[in-house]
């Protein structure tokens, strides 16, 4: 379940935000994420932001992937 897509917050007006993903813009509600700020990335599910994406964790995850990939490359060449 749960199609939710990372979207960038472009503007906020009360509980309503304008979010954008890959060039597609939509109005979204930030009732569930009042801490969202312009420039944040949120997970958009049925028109609501359900959380603010932790960019540091996102980078950390990609770093882990790359490290795993390098370790794998080393192992397989041994």
């Amino acid at each position, binding site marked *: *379940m*749960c199609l939710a897509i990372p979207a960038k917050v472009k503007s906020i007006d009360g509980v309503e935000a304008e979010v954008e993903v890959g060039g597609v813009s939509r109005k979204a509600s930030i009732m569930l*994420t009042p801490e969202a700020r312009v420039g944040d*990335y949120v997970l958009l*599910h049925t028109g609501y932001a359900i959380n603010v994406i*932790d960019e540091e964790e996102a980078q950390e995850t990609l770093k882990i992937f790359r490290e795993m990939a390098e370790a*794998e490359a080393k192992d397989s060449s041994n």
Partner: protein
Amino acid sequence: MKFISEYRDAELGKKLIARIQQRSTKPARLMEFCGGHTVSIAKHGLRQLLPPTITMLSGPGCPVCVTASADLDKAIALAKLPDVIITTFGDMIKVPASRSSLQQVKAEGGDVRIVYSTLDALKIAQSNPSKSVVFIGVGFETTAPTIAASVLQAEQQGIDNYYVLSLHKLCPPVVKALLDSGEVKIDGIVCPGHVSVIIGSHPYEFIPRDYGIACVISGFEPLDILQCVDMLVDQIENGQPKVEIAYRRGVKPEGNRIALELMDKVFEVCDGNWRGIGVVPGSGLRLRKEYQRYDAEHNFEIRPGEPIEPKGCICGDILRAVKTPLECKLFRKVCNPEHPVGPCMVSSEGSCAAYYQYGEGYGG
């Protein structure tokens, strides 16, 4: 697209797969019970790429598939009432209920409209003050808070012709029911990503603690799922089951506190009726007394008729991962996306639809 494309990197994927192939020595039966995972695994062909030690099973993760006929019959009965506009997510429209479907009612003249969000349903309510707009509330903990928010918004804006038919379900109780039934042997669970954004990781702690089963909360992109499988293999190889979060950019251990509060404000827990499983105590949500004026069940005379389950349909067994679609006598021959018999075929996330569409029985 940021936060999507990076997690589809083919080169990194191949390396992750190689790593899993190397490290997985013990048989690992892994169940995912989130339709989004079912589809992603099928779409990217991940099953084929994993080593033979790993078996991927699909559990009752599709909220559409687990909606009981009796409940969907209520939606259909509402759709037939005069001056009622039914607003629904697209997923529900083709699902066969006892005698009809929302799509069929639409063809027969019912006002049934597909919306992307409850926000759209609220707009429809505002533009049609002389009609009653009923929103068919389906979904797990990811979606329930958004429906709760819509009820609060209706209250704030004085929209008095908006109603919700709550068919919402909760995940952890059904996992417990499944594990208690002992029907399927599972070594690890791919925990739902977006449900966990809301509920956090604590609700799953009973799984490793009481059942010794590994748990990792996964995102939806191919690299996310591979990372999750890698972490599950790790737990299984070391015999150290616990709850871990792979989807760290989305999930915090405490979840989304505000969403949980809003959900709790509008809804209360009740028994849930799961297709193919039956009643699971404490697994459903209904609107609280304070919000009864928005509850469709409270405000309309709903006469759904006796529920009928389609003959020969084993969606129940498939939802509980006791059988695969390939073992269903109706699969493909009688039951297909054009003429679905059960919900597993209709829902875009249902196991049968995924098998049919992406050819799970096809070995690349």
